[in-house]
């Protein structure tokens, strides 16, 4: 995009002013990655007083400031600028190429200096450096703002997700307190069952949140050892066998060869448990869950498929983001934190891997996780 930076040139020599304007008026600076280009809107001042007045009127981004000025001198202008407009980059023009002047100016907050006499190319160079500095700083600020916004959004949704089970349980308790369904205890069976379910859901949300925080902070000490992915898959199936049995869902580990990889056991357990528990949760009664652990030379592939409710393309596209829960007729009454697959995705990325899904509505879904089998230690210990 064509953006302008405001440049103020302050010098008491008219020839010098005109020369600088000529050199810079059509000058363009690109960021190093060439994604942005800026031009300069140039203002001039022939002495310190005028300069300060112009700065107060419209604050420039960069000031080219002559060191020796009649009246208010360059250093005084510099001092005022650094005090009042700390974001402005000042480039001192020093008449004598003495180190002391440059050092003094830098100490007082000048960003850079250029010594007279200078060529147009030298002037452009020093302006280019300052302009790039400003563009980088802006980009960093935008990123920081974006991060803050995402954080805020996350916390808002989280607050809502925590409030919702509390409201539900509170509603049931009030109903029981007021005996709204009469004096028979059995009339409140559903209230109690739903309350317990919502409390469990809330606990799961908190556990998921802790997993997510640990992954994102990178603080948890990762313990990379040789682990059997096949064993972890067997354990995940065993953990969920009660839920599956209750709904007559058949589960099978379809690959029997022992596949090992270099990994943190806890992380692999989370990946496997989240995928298999989803395959049970979003299945149809009497359905089927298949798990396969496959070894490539440099990768390990985990596949979990189900005969469940499936996903539309649009649903699949946003599935792996934080707090995304697919809300429709088929998922009604199924509880979840909305963080499970986001966690799987983030964990997989620690192994240079990724998660994908293929799905047909009402037929089922297949989730595939590809992990680097022997992650290099520095990449693996990075944690983000």
């Amino acid at each position: 995009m064509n953006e302008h930076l405001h440049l103020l040139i302050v010098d008491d020599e008219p020839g010098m002013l005109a020369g600088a304007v000529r050199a810079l008026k059509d000058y363009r600076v690109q960021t190093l990655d060439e994604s942005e280009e800026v031009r300069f809107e140039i203002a001039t001042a022939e002495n310190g007083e005028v300069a300060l007045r112009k700065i107060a009127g419209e604050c420039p981004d960069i000031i080219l400031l002559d060191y020796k000025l009649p009246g208010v001198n360059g250093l005084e202008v510099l001092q005022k600028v650094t005090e009042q407009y700390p974001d402005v980059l000042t480039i001192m023009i020093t008449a004598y190429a003495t180190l002391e002047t440059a050092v003094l100016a830098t100490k007082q907050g000048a960003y850079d200096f250029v010594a007279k006499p200078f060529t147009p190319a030298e002037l452009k160079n020093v302006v280019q450096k300052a302009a790039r500095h400003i563009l980088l700083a802006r980009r960093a600020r935008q990123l920081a703002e974006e991060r803050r916004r995402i954080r805020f959004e996350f916390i808002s949704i989280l607050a809502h997700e925590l409030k919702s089970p509390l409201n539900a349980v509170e509603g049931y308790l009030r109903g029981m307190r007021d005996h709204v369904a009469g004096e028979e205890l059995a009339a409140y069976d559903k209230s109690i069952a739903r309350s317990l379910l919502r409390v469990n859901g809330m606990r799961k949300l908190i556990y998921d949140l802790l997993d997510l925080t640990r992954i994102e902070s990178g603080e948890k000490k990762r313990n990379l050892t040789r682990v059997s992915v096949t064993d972890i898959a067997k354990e995940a199936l065993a953990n969920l066998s009660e839920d599956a049995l209750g709904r007559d869902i058949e589960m099978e580990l379809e690959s029997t060869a022992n596949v090992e990889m270099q990994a943190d056991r806890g992380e692999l357990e989370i990946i496997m448990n989240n995928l298999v528990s989803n395959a049970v949760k979003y299945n149809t009664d009497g359905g089927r869950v298949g798990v396969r652990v496959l070894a490539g030379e440099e990768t390990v592939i985990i596949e979990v498929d189900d005969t469940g409710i499936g996903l539309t393309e649009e649903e699949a596209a946003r599935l792996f983001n934080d707090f995304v829960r697919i809300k429709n007729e088929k998922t009604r009454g199924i509880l979840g934190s909305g963080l499970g697959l986001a966690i799987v995705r983030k964990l997989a990325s620690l192994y240079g891997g990724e998660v994908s899904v293929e799905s047909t509505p009402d037929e089922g879904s297949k989730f595939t996780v590809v992990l680097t089998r022997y992650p290099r230690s520095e990449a693996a210990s990075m944690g983000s």
Partner: protein
Amino acid sequence: MESKQKVLIVDDDEDLLEQLTQILEGAGYEVRTAASQAEGEEMLLSIRPDLAVFDLMMEEMDSGFMLSHYLKKLYSDVPVILLTAVTSSTGLSFQESSTEARSWVKVDEVLDKPVRAEQIKSVVARLLSEVKGAPDG
């Protein structure tokens, strides 16, 4: 013996649906429930409730309005209570006190979630008595 008055509740929050059912059944009404705008519309084709309670946000941001509009076209004199979580989630106040606003939103009462038992019971009773008290037409 007068038969029980029928209340239709449509809300996609399973817990709220259960709690409102308990409250209104406890107060002596016959309660029918639906869990989505689509389900509610379908149900309205086969039953004519004496009063309806709709959640505002279900499949769509304005599902409650759509349902209310749909119901009033079928049975113009059936009172509707709209439940919203708008105030608590956005801080916006959503009150339609003026008659003009009421005719526009086509609901008879708007209640903020969470709804208290006494509150919903008294509003339901009041709206039903207003219908009864009105001359037939």
